[in-house]
């Protein structure tokens, strides 16, 4: 029984890490723009599809495929998300609500674009993070090599972001721009450049998350249209929206709650628990688990 509980915990944490990775991107965008991007999860889907195209279909080496895929999604962040959506709305003093609706529509557009270009059939992702058939075994508990990669990436990301925002001039300039664009501009910060950077950063990091998610989700439209985006958002809200570490903890909480609800209640309630947690936090602790980083 103990082994079952351990296995369930580890699998729950592995899933939770994935939710957390998506949540980190939500936090990052909120921190740097003060907005919620509802097309956020599309960046993960595009990252996975671009990587699959370069690496599997065109046989580019993994590193080149990875860099190209992430760069292309970052470019999409600057050109489409910022250039077409954000600038148009902000140019005529549009509000946050308009941005939310516009990005929701952008998400649907990108989902359909992917279906048209790549088809709706899921593709198997190459085993670049270790064979899923030979997990690391501690006793009778199996741990996926892939989960260790995700753990390493998320820890590095959280530490890196913490350092970037607190210790570097560019990071501080980004935060200043998010807080007050006019004052930041008066301080000599290139607001346009900073906004472009924040769009590229959040979409690029989410693209990496998409590549990390693909071995589990396959290269499929589920990445962009499935429930993972909502769970990532819930992780960020539970964690406090302004703290990437909080998003990670929020994700772990959801992953564990889901798996234990299947184990002790019923598999039919797996997704319900995410929304129960989200509603609970929105009512009882809207500021989230952690304070602003």
């Amino acid at each position, binding site marked *: 029984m103990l082994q079952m509980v351990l*296995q369930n915990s580890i699998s729950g944490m592995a899933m939770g890490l994935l939710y957390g990775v998506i949540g980190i991107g939500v936090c990052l965008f909120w921190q740097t723009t003060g907005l919620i991007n509802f097309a956020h999860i599309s960046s993960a889907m595009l990252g996975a599809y671009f990587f699959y195209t370069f690496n599997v279909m065109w046989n580019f080496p993994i590193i080149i495929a990875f860099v190209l895929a992430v760069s292309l999604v970052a470019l999409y962040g600057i050109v489409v998300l910022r250039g077409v959506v954000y600038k148009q709305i902000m140019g005529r003093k549009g509000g946050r609500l308009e941005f939310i609706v516009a990005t929701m529509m952008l998400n649907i557009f990108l989902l359909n674009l992917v279906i048209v270009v790549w088809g709706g059939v899921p593709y198997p992702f190459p085993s670049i993070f270790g064979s899923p058939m030979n997990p690391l075994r501690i006793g009778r508990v*199996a741990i996926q090599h892939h989960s260790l990669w995700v753990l390493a990436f998320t820890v590095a990301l959280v530490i890196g972001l913490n350092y970037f925002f607190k210790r570097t001039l560019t990071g501080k300039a980004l935060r200043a721009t998010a807080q007050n664009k006019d004052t930041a501009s008066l301080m000599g910060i290139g607001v346009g450049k900073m906004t472009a950077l924040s769009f590229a950063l959040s979409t690029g990091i989410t693209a990496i998350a998409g590549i990390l998610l693909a071995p589990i989700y396959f290269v499929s439209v589920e990445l962009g249209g499935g429930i993972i985006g909502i769970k990532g958002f819930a992780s960020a809200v539970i964690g406090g929206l302004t703290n990437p570490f909080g998003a990670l903890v929020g994700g772990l909480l959801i992953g564990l709650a889901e798996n234990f609800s299947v184990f002790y209640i019923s598999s039919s309630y*797996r997704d319900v628990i995410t929304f129960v947690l989200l509603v609970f936090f929105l009512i009882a602790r809207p500021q989230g688990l952690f304070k602003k980083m």
Partner: protein
Amino acid sequence: MRKYFKVLPLMVLVVTLLAGSVAGAQTIKFGLVAPFTGSGSILGDYIREAMMLAVDEINAAGGIEGRQIEVIVYDDEAAPATAINVVKRVIENDKVDVVFGPNMSSSVLAVHQVAADNETLMMVGATSPSLGYDRTGNPWLFRLRADDQVRVENQADYAVEVLGSKKPGIIYGTTDYCTSARDVIIARFAEHGIEPVAVEQMREGDVDATGQLLNMVRAGVDSIMGLTHESEAAVFVRQMRQMGVDVPIVGFTAWGVPAFTDLAPEAAKGVIAVQSFTPEDTNPVVQEFVQKYQARYGRLPSDPGQAYYDGVYAIKEVIERVGFDKHAMRQELENFSGYVGLQGELVTDEKHNLSRFSLISEFQGDGWKIIEKY
């Protein structure tokens, strides 16, 4: 001069009708409604390719009773809302003689009444028991494959009679296709005096089944019945292998197609599945079809293509027997027998299924090995 103007509309009408009847005499229109985008897009390609192979063969041999077959194809995106639009269009605007598809059970449930209202034959490959004539009461709806009732009962029988399972576990999805199969398999196990020890759900899009698997282990299952769609089947078997859960697994039709085995080729080894078709079938009729298909498309055919290939030939046979009158065709289809296709002899049963053919096969990594034929 004025009297000419008076008869002009009448002349135009007569000429139009004549032109229409001349054109009608040259072709017979088939509509194909299948998913070419969306989650079921791979099925649409297999269906269209197999159907066009039959159509082109028939047209090359002079058509049906001298008429060439014209095919109008629509994409229903595997979505009932889209299916309603395209089925209405293909029946009411294009005025086809026979509609093939939709292929998704939920789409057929949404649209079959359109075929009944317009008295147009609808030949579907969807397999949910909900679509049987006993449930829909639609005299114009026919099914080209065995329904899931038949196949899932075979699945349960195989688990009990061949594998000797006494404590089966069930993993099922949430669509009508999966939940209907779950109800059928539980009822069939009950007929054997067996109650499944774990009945677990996996939502479409779920990528973790640890909790469900642990519940099955805790319940001491001695076999697992897979009743999910293809992607979830791949996730489930992969995690099953990772966690070292070592019991036989028997899946229903979604577990017997490349859309599943391509996603988890290693983990799927040893999976037993109920199938409607496999290109490994040594039946000479099937092998001839496989060779023609491969020569034309450069890949192997897959379920449910064979059902639509058979369907086109069944309609040809019907017309050759009773002519082009749709009521006579429907009547003939209702009592149809005597035509041998890829699925053996097609015989319409009381549920309007033209076939009860199914296979039990085991995936061996590079293909399927047939264990039983029903």
